[in-house]
């Protein structure tokens, strides 16, 4: 507890002179001494940082800035216009490209184009096979080699 208070004082006094009582404690307590040493190190480092020369302001900084202020006021209005116009142009181009791509790709792919037509194409053979199924079965059953296996069995069952 005492050490904690000592260290609080070191933080608070910082670069100031430590009172004799604290110096006495620091001299005998290894942990507080190490804390105090670190404090000295950081203080010296901060001092060294503060002493380092700050980057020079380049010649004509203020003049350039004022010019920019004038430009930026006019620019913002102009920029907004161009940004909006530009965005529209980009959108239009994108849409056009998309339309073009679709136009190119769609006719080449069957199933995508007109599901209704596809349905019709699919539906017809089903009906057709349903009708011809029996007929073919009857005809083919006369020639055992040609008839599908399933059909042969079905025929045999029918005969039984």
């Amino acid at each position, binding site marked *: 507890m005492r050490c904690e208070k000592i260290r609080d004082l070191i933080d608070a006094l910082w670069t100031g002179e430590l009172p004799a009582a604290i110096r006495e404690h620091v001299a005998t307590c290894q942990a507080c001494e190490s804390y105090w040493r670190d404090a000295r190190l950081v203080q010296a480092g*901060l001092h060294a940082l503060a002493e380092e020369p*700050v980057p020079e302001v380049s010649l004509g*900084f203020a003049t350039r800035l004022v010019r920019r202020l004038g430009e930026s006021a006019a620019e913002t209005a102009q920029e907004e216009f161009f940004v909006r116009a530009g965005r529209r142009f980009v959108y239009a181009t994108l849409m056009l490209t998309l339309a073009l791509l679709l136009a190119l790709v769609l006719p080449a792919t069957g199933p995508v184009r007109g599901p209704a037509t596809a349905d019709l194409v699919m539906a017809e053979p089903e009906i057709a096979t349903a009708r011809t199924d029996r007929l073919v079965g009857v005809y083919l059953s006369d020639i055992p080699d040609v008839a599908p296996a399933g059909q042969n069995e079905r025929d045999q069952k029918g005969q039984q």
Partner: protein
Amino acid sequence: MANPGPDIGQEIEWIKRAQRGENEAFGPLVDRYQRRIFSLVYHVLQRRGEVEDMAQEIFIKAFRSVRSYNFRAAFGTWLSRIAVNHCYDHLRRIRASRVSYYWQLTEEGQRELEAKLESPEAQRLDDEDRAALRDLVGKLLDRAPRSDRVILVLKELEDYSVEEIAEILKLKASTVKVRLHRARKRMLEDIKRWQPGRAISGVGQGR
């Protein structure tokens, strides 16, 4: 860093004209405060190459909001507040992409430095020592929480008074003192974390 004493009347005139939208009137204000802003930005960011761009952004921001300046705080203090907030935002943005460095100073090197600091004339520090110290503290600042970093820079590097820091950060002076104290403590604890070999040991350990 002190208030621009002599022609404060002239300054008020410039500010009022800038508030009416006169760009040219802002020029002398930039001239007067550019060094202060450069120094603040440099110390907070610790990056030489970014100072001018940042300062430019800060002054443009200040011009755009100059109408909100009410002459209550000194103009320089008001500018510093804008600069600090701008740096704050910048730090938040770069924090994610920043690698944290570790202190390269060896224990031996540190002992040597400490011995030199013990000696009555700190003049004995040569350029290399100073560079090592700058490196150490720069990295400590870099790792510190943003609010610690800003308050330490304002006090230790920019040498602002507690009252002025309070005005810049919109805090009470007593709060500034507490935070400053805490920021120093955290820095010193951070050093310990880097040197497990030299960790505080023995009775009465602080934490």
